[in-house]
């Protein structure tokens, strides 16, 4: 159950990453920064201010949006590999800082937390000891985010993102400030990654600066590309399949990372369009 | 006349899009053959298919009687085909000397000496130690020609060699090409503008949508205004 809830939270992370990669065409290898920031803000606001669950979630979104704005302000000016590296550099900076200010972050040891009850005005539901309530809450929030993304992508702005991805120069000529829209995309993605980090911590009752580490960023890239970039469902599928696969294989084979490595290579070489792309291709062929 | 290069029903795909729909053409010895057409009809792709850069999916290419359609790409230039691509593509961070040296592959090839090269392109002598990227456009074009010439090819493929050059420079380049041709090198020349090649080429092929639609001598083509309008859209 917890695994399922965790994966739903991670799905949001994957979707958010795909907004900037699959839709706006920017590969960020520092997305864990926002995920971790959201998780930390959520945890710390609960630990230190005993804040309300909603407030904490909101703070996580706002906080990671601000961080995303600051990083994005610099990052979107860079293109291609430089963009990748700037995002890595910033994520390393935040990661090192999380070590340095260990008294706040708990550093490598992390921080456990007790999730406050969910207040709905008239009734209050315990989330901490009630995995089902937690599950439905996370699911509801992530579904709302999904709908939001879905609307966003269909909106003129979403089309603009796609236009930037396919040809930024041309979009500029038509008269759009592409930097601005790249930044918007980056901030939205960062904010929701933060939310997913908060939901993740809400589920695991724990946070740790490993969530900020660049290897966490690589995970989300893997889910997105294996699942199928440029779609909303693809990254979600990637997150599900990979997390389940890892759980399954780690239980049966001790040196399981070898298998994971092989599967990754297999997918890229033989299913380059991602799982979703492959399935859609199959359906299309059926129809023909 | 023996044909040195023979393309038979070449079909080439670029990703999923079908670019060449069965190109058939021949270049004979000592001939300058011209491939004329508008933008994006497959002229460059034809050259690239010969060079093996975008291999033909169907059809056959014969060079000096040998089928080269499916041999490894990097072996094709070694058979004696020089390639001067559109936009020149000299190596910007190599010196002129290195740019000339690069085409020499293997030890058996008979190589043109620097003296011979400089007899065509005297300007390069002064630039030998300069980086390719620092040359002017005309000089780069000369270098690209020279680079193709060094391994002593029997056929040179030219892709719009006068594009973007000042008229005087363009004229010079055309003259050099003719000079090279007179030493027994056949030339397949891709061009957009009819005027550039009417004087020099022996035969002209017009291509459109990946097919050769017309072929004849420059004289015949100049007479035929209808064809001109349809395939190259020039107003002469």
């Amino acid at each position, binding site marked *: *159950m*917890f*695994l*399922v809830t*965790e994966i*739903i939270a991670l799905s949001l992370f994957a979707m958010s990453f795909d907004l900037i990669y699959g839709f706006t065409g920017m590969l960020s290898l520092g997305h864990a920064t926002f995920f971790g920031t959201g998780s930390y803000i959520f945890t710390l606001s609960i630990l230190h201010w005993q804040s309300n669950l909603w407030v904490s979630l909101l703070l996580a979104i706002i906080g990671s949006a601000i961080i995303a704005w600051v990083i994005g302000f610099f990052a979107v000016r860079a293109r291609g590999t430089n963009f990748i590296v700037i995002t890595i550099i910033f994520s390393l900076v935040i990661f*090192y800082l999380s*070590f*340095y200010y*260990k008294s706040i972050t*708990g*550093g*490598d*040891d*992390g*921080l*456990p937390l*007790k999730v406050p009850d969910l207040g709905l005005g008239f009734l209050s539901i315990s989330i*901490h*000891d009630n995995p*089902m309530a937690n*599950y439905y809450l996370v*699911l509801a929030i*992530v*579904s709302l985010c*999904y*709908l939001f993304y*879905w609307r966003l992508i*269909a909106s003129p702005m979403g089309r603009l993102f796609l236009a930037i991805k396919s040809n930024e120069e041309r979009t500029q000529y038509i008269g759009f400030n592409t930097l601005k829209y790249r930044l918007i995309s980056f901030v939205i993605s960062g904010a929701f990654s933060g939310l997913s980090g908060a939901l993740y911590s809400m589920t*695991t*009752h*724990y946070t*740790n600066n*490993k*969530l900020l580490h660049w290897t966490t960023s690589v995970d989300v890239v893997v889910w997105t590309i294996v699942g199928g970039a440029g779609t909303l*469902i693809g990254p*979600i599928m990637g997150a599900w399949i990979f997390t389940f696969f890892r*759980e399954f294989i*780690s*239980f049966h084979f*001790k*040196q*399981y*990372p070898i298998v994971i490595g092989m599967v990754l290579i297999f997918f890229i070489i033989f299913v380059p369009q991602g799982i979703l792309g492959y399935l859609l291709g199959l359906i299309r062929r059926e129809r023909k | 006349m023996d044909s040195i290069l023979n393309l038979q029903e070449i079909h080439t795909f670029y990703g999923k899009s079908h670019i060449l729909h069965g190109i058939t053409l021949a270049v004979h010895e000592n001939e300058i053959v011209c491939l004329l057409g508008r933008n994006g009809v497959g002229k460059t792709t034809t050259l690239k298919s010969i060079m093996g850069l975008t291999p033909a999916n169907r059809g056959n290419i014969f060079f000096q009687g040998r089928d080269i359609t499916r041999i490894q790409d990097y072996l094709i230039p070694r058979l004696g085909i020089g390639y001067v691509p559109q936009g020149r593509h000299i190596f910007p961070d190599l010196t002129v000397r290195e740019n000339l040296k690069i085409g020499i592959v293997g030890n058996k090839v008979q190589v043109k000496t620097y003296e011979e090269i400089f007899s065509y392109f005297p300007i390069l002598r002064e630039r030998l130690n300069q980086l390719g990227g620092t040359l002017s456009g005309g000089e780069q074009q000369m270098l690209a020609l020279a680079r193709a010439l060094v391994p002593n090819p029997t056929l040179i493929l030219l892709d719009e060699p006068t594009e973007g050059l000042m008229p005087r420079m363009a004229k010079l380049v055309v003259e050099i090409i003719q000079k090279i041709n007179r030493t027994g090198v056949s030339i397949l020349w891709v061009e957009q503008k009819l005027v550039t090649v009417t004087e020099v080429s022996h035969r002209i092929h017009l291509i459109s949508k990946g097919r050769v639609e017309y072929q004849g001598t420059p004289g015949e083509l100049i007479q035929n205004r209808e064809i001109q309008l349809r395939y190259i859209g020039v107003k002469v």
Partner: protein
Amino acid sequence: MEKKKKRISRRRFLKAMGTGAALLSAEPFVRPLGGFWAQERSPIIIGHQCDYTGFLAGWGYWMDMAAKYAIKLINDAGGIAGRKVEYVMEDTASDPATGTRKLRSLIQRLNADFVIGCIHAGPATGSLPVAKELKTVYFMQSSSDEVITKFGSRYTFMGGGVELSKINYGVPWAVKNLGKKFTFCAYDMAWGYTHVNGSTPIIEKMGGKVLDKIFIPLGTKDFYPYLGKIPPETEVLYGVFSGPPALGFLTQTYEIGLHKKMKRYVDVGVMEGFNTEKIGGVAEDCWYMTFFPRRLKFKDTEHVRNLRKALNVDEEGVEIGGPQVLCGSRYWAAYENVFWIKRAIEKSGWKSKKDNAAFIEALEGMCVKEGLEFIQGDKCMRAKDHFILHDLWMGHIENNKMEEKTKFSFKEEPFPPAVDYTKEKV
């Protein structure tokens, strides 16, 4: 055109809703899956949350084998209270988030009745509250004492060696015998702080002085910038590291000749997991405190021999035909934890998790004698803070060999408990 667009987007909307519905309905499918694993509860299931891969893999390897061997012994002798014991292991990948998730997996999916924890303090920190939440007895292996006093509960026991014992026995000895001016050089993590914060008052009370406390972040390879900060008048350099950086620390202090100017007194984590004979003498003349000698000759009993045979190590603690080196100071704990569980079940008549209260009460304050089940020595499980009180050894590297010099037998109250869990309700 307009119409067509609309229809497509409606279809997409339906698709979106469909996905949402699918996610919602996923839940009932997952639950029976859990039930599938539940089966009949006849065996007692002991879970092991083990650092099998990742940077602590060199430790997890032995912990896994030692626990397995203990369970094999129990099952060969008929199990616990007539019930077979089953062993399930999950890998933390030495990663806190994964580790915490794996504890849930052990308890909820694999139905572990008791869990032997991991060495990494990160997953342990996350796991302690989870153990309480899921009402499962958890034996923490990590020796970050701070963590268990801060985040632990009545369900959590200090399963392995206790760092505070090491400090309370070892540091006074060091002040007496090695020097009075100390400089700390420690990992910037809970374990490092346990040492620094625990030792400082002892040193100062005995008239010693702490000159500097240098904390080094995880992942540091080059120690030179840090080593340069060590005050030259230091008499004892107190190092707290483990794994690859520990080796780097020893090498680099040796390289710049600190070993000649001061005594290096290190936590045994520094010595764990690698072969002191094959490192070119960089560890020479180090003093260290250990929970258990790696070399057989310092604790040569029949039972230790048997266990080591099962682990396939030679008398020096090196894997036979393999590269691994026994983490002497720790492996025994995974073995003994299994027997703590056995003793407490037998004493309390535990049948299922409903009897956890009785189990915990039985374990609290339990004292055991050395033997087949407790190979490391006599020990007690202190009731209040759930710490194990046990023997310790002071070792010295001489001619590249670990020589245990002094044995400290455990005393009743080496240090006062920081918490009292007995008042907590189960």
